[in-house]
């Protein structure tokens, strides 16, 4: 088929849309893969066959080295100690990574022993098994301590170091740790250098540095053991035996627990993946609309060719096959380019995605090794299916018109049939969507429901296009002849641009829905932050010094937040303290509350508690319910009544607030202190802090700063959403432009006629633009209620299911107007090109071409 010349534009469009589609899809797949890999393996830390771990019952009585030694002496050589701390990494006082790096120490010598024991029981070939199950040991030479990191992290650190290094600096990468957060006993001592970093490719390595436990304690001398991993090949009964045996020997303050799969986080990130995947699919679908259009265009242009081929005796089947082969080839090329682009793109957006995951979901993100072949097979498979599907529709039409001479179908009846079909479809989709929303609380079903909801809107739009335009037509005074004519023409246009209009509607709906949701969320969060950040300063400190006492010597008003984590009905639950001064009472932002005066009275009397939405929704509690849980100080079960449910955005955990008096101040942990003071008081406090060797530079923040940081993080988080929205819109506009190119030939005679009547070329261009803008405007008007509905579903259903929090929907009409303007602007920019191109052609050419 040598007909590329005539259809260059459409083939280009076809390739472009396929590239965009495959690029978007594979980017999301890469991001998904990396995020998934990193958190799912966090707990096993490169070691296979770990199913249990020993943990301290209570932070008051931590797991000590002595416990470890005792247990190992008792013969439990399968227990391997690990210790973890997070820290920023610096070079010459310049922070290298924006994220904290998790530094993990593993007792490698014992681990090796345990693995050898295991394999000795199972096979003779001990060494190979050891290396198979824990290949990272191979990367650790025993001669010198090293830290194992993922190549991507190493590269990132190196890059940061290079960009921050002054000219003439040392060549050797010297890194030291800021130990302020976990250990301040040696403050003022020289910097502690990290061991040499060795890169090691493993999907479970994220933002981690793995090192031997000896090295770890050199870095963090005051750190405690985190847990003991039970490394054992045993399974079934023998494992159970072992577990029971260990349980029998464990001292009272330790427990043996199955290694959790981190359920909560799993759910959260799953919802994030769903989110991303849904958006990618949306984009993909819109791209498919373009493909349909482009294929249509190609076929239109080639119709004479096909006819000649048919006349030459080439069977329809052969033509069909040749076209399919061609499309497949184009898809293949586009997929290659798309995946290539996506790898670069995902590297580009990785930091912002990581920020999202960490900021919003509290998930550790790593560097996924993207298996190129698998990725390619996946993307190519989906793209091919999509493009073939998209191709089949126009082809079946072209086949029909090849076999039969054009039949003049009954226009009016046809229209009425479409009208009924679309109405039926719309109602059907709407019913389906609402029944799913009503009866299901599974996340993916809810997402399907939203998709169905959008489809319902789509059908409704298509069913009502002619009616709405006709209504508008009647409103236009008869004086405006051309305007009326154009309005009439856009009815016919709407019938021919169904696909493009749908794409635009979907893009507009999701745009409005997403924007309203994000805006509501932003509004609620900022409100909440502004209210909750009530005191003047905040100090983050996890060390041993008594900050409250220090503050008292500086005569500064301070409130500490006691923290305790317990297991409640099988899930992690935060028990925090909350001050009951007037200031703090006012700062609380409630989703629901009972009588406010009684509430605080009962709260102070330790009868009532406040819970966050996450807690209430997860366990299905409502206001006034009684909950029985461990008292944070005594650990004894006690019954509390829920008197308030508060907003707690961004917290993946369930949380319950108690008064300060519920905690044992001698042993309860605190990491955040709220401070009320003036400038002078702050200076006094700083002096006191410095006297106690506490580095306050980075951990003492004023509320305004904190608020600014939070807002900034928030905005960065939603950059991705905004970006995807714009891309979807652009793709939809492109699809419209594609449709215009197809239609330009259809409307050519009419334009020719109007221009031969003496209407200027400029006027006809403006009228053409008007027609398409009218279609878009109507699509936007239809998209508005559906967008609002979408944001409602997102906030009250999907958010609730995914994150267990919700917030009031704020409908910002300025925002909607802005989206209108933006969408129309995008459309104008994109469709102007073909319209102007058509208008530039001298009239005489059109006349000659047509007559």
């Amino acid at each position, binding site marked *: 088929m040598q007909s590329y010349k005539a259809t260059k534009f459409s083939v280009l469009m076809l390739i472009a849309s396929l590239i965009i589609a495959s690029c978007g899809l594979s980017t999301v797949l890469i991001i998904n893969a990396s995020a998934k890999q990193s958190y799912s393996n966090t707990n096993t830390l490169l070691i296979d066959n770990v199913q249990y771990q020993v943990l301290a019952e209570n932070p008051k009585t931590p797991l000590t080295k002595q416990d470890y030694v005792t247990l190992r002496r008792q013969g439990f050589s399968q227990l391997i100690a690990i210790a973890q701390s997070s820290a920023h990494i610096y070079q010459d006082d310049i922070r290298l990574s924006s994220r904290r790096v998790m530094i993990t120490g593993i007792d490698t010598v014992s681990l090796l022993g345990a693995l050898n024991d295991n394999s000795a029981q199972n096979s003779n070939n001990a060494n190979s098994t050891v290396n198979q199950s824990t290949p990272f040991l191979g990367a650790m030479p025993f001669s010198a301590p090293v830290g194992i990191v993922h190549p991507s992290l190493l590269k990132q650190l190196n890059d940061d170091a290079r960009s921050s290094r002054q000219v003439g600096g040392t060549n050797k990468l010297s890194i030291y740790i800021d130990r302020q957060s976990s250990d301040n006993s040696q403050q003022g001592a020289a910097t502690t250098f990290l061991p040499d970093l060795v890169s090691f490719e493993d999907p479970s390595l994220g933002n981690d540095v793995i090192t031997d436990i000896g090295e770890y304690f050199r870095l963090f001398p005051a750190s405690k053991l985190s847990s003991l991993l039970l490394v054992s090949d045993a399974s079934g009964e023998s494992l159970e035996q072992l577990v029971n045996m260990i349980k029998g020997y464990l001292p009272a303050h330790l427990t043996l627990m199955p290694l959790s799969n981190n359920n909560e986080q799993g759910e959260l990130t799953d919802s994030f993946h769903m989110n991303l995947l849904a958006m990618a699919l949306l984009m993909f679908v819109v791209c498919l609309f373009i493909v349909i259009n482009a294929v249509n265009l190609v076929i239109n242009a080639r119709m004479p060719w096909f006819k000649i081929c048919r006349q030459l005796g080439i069977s329809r089947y052969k033509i069909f096959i040749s076209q399919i082969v061609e499309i497949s080839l184009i898809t293949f090329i586009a997929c290659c380019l798309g995946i290539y682009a996506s790898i670069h793109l995902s590297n580009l957006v990785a930091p912002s995605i990581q920020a999202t995951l960490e900021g919003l979901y509290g998930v550790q993100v790593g560097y996924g090794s993207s298996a190129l072949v698998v990725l390619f097979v996946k993307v190519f498979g989906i793209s091919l299916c999509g493009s073939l599907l998209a191709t089949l529709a126009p082809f079946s039409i072209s086949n029909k018109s090849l076999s039969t001479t054009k039949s*003049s179908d009954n*226009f009016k009846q046809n229209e009425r049939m479409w009208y009924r079909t679309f109405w039926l479809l719309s109602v059907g989709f709407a019913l389906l969507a609402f029944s799913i929303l009503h009866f299901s609380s599974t996340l993916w079903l809810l997402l399907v429901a939203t998709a169905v909801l959008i489809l319902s809107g789509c059908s409704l739009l298509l069913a009502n296009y002619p009616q709405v335009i006709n209504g508008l037509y009647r409103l236009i005074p*008869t*004086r405006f*002849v*051309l305007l009326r*004519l154009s309005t*009439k*023409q856009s*009815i*016919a246009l709407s019938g021919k641009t169904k696909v493009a209009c749908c794409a635009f509607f979907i893009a507009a709906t999701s745009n409005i829905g997403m924007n309203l949701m994000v805006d509501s969320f932003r509004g609620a969060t900022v409100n909440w932050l502004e209210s909750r950040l009530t005191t003047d300063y905040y100090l983050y400190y996890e060390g041993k010094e008594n900050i409250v006492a220090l503050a008292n010597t500086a005569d500064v008003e301070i409130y500490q937040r006691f923290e305790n984590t317990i297991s409640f009905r099988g899930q992690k639950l935060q028990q925090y303290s909350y001050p009951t001064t007037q200031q703090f009472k006012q700062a609380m932002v409630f989703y629901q509350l009972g009588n406010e005066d009684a509430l605080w009275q009962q709260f102070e009397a330790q009868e009532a508690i406040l819970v966050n939405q996450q807690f209430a929704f997860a366990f299905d509690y409502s206001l006034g319910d009684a909950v029985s849980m461990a008292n944070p100080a005594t650990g004894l079960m006690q019954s509390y009544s829920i008197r308030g449910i508060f907003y707690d955005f961004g917290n993946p955990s369930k949380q319950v607030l108690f008064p300060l008096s519920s905690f044992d101040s001698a042993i309860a942990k605190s990491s955040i202190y709220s401070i009320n003071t003036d400038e002078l008081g702050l200076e006094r406090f700083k002096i006191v802090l410095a006297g106690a060797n506490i580095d306050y530079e980075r951990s003492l923040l004023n509320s305004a700063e904190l608020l600014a940081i939070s807002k900034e993080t928030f905005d960065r988080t939603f950059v991705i959403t905004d970006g995807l929205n714009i891309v979807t819109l652009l793709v939809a506009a492109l699809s419209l432009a594609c449709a215009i190119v197809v239609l330009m030939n259809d409307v050519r*005679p*009419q334009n*020719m*006629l*109007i221009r*031969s*009547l*003496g*209407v*200027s*070329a400029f006027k006809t261009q403006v009228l053409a633009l008007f027609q398409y803008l009218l279609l878009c405007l109507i699509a936007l008007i239809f998209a508005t209620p559906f967008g609002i509905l979408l944001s409602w579903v997102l906030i009250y259903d999907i958010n609730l299911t995914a994150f267990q929090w919700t917030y009031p929907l704020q409908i910002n009409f300025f925002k909607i107007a802005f989206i209108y303007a933006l969408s129309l602007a995008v459309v104008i920019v994109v469709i102007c090109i073909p319209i102007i191109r058509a208008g530039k052609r001298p*009239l*005489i050419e059109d*006349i*000659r071409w*047509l*007559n």
Partner: protein
Amino acid sequence: MLTIDAISKSYLDGTVQQHILSQLSFSIESGVSVSIRGASGSGKSTLLHLLAALDTPDEGRIWFSDSTIQASKLDIASFSEAQANAYRMSTIGIVFQKYNLIDVISVKENIFLPAKLNAQKGVPLDTDYITKLMADLGVLKHADKLPHQLSGGEQQRVAIARALAHKPRLLLADEPTGNLDSVNSELVSSLLIDTCSKHNTTLILVTHSEKVAALTSQQVFLEQGRLVSTSG
């Protein structure tokens, strides 16, 4: 009213300069009907396009004068874009071989379209005249139909009504019946010629049919870019 003064038009066909019209001159009186015949490719359409200010000649002038509107002569060949648009909108009517109607609006709206466009420019809309025109052309009963619901002959009659609706001084018709069978062709053509003479509109009609040409008051034959014979 129309004086064609030594116009030439040529196209570059590859590397060869194709002279379509060379030094063509003749004049047409107001109110007469002229038929132009000639072999395919002889330049009939080209000439008509020049007269409609859709195209410009390489050289020569086309003088248009109309005693009822203005005394001075206008050179169509040197019209600006805006002048050409105004000229096509108010002074002339055009009927093509096909694509004469807009298919999304009714027959009546099609016919009224040029008149309404002129009404926007301040020319009063003569509804009675147009209704009578429609009756004369036998399309009144189809007024509310859409163009594609009519037969080919009916569509061309609607096109003639549309071209005459704004009372043009000059009607240019390029093979208006080229797509019709011979019986219909003669019927529509004679209707066209009659209607024009009835409203005292100058008609220039390109046709292949000798029979049709015989109905006009002046006959022109184009050959190799020159006028071969005029009669009538």
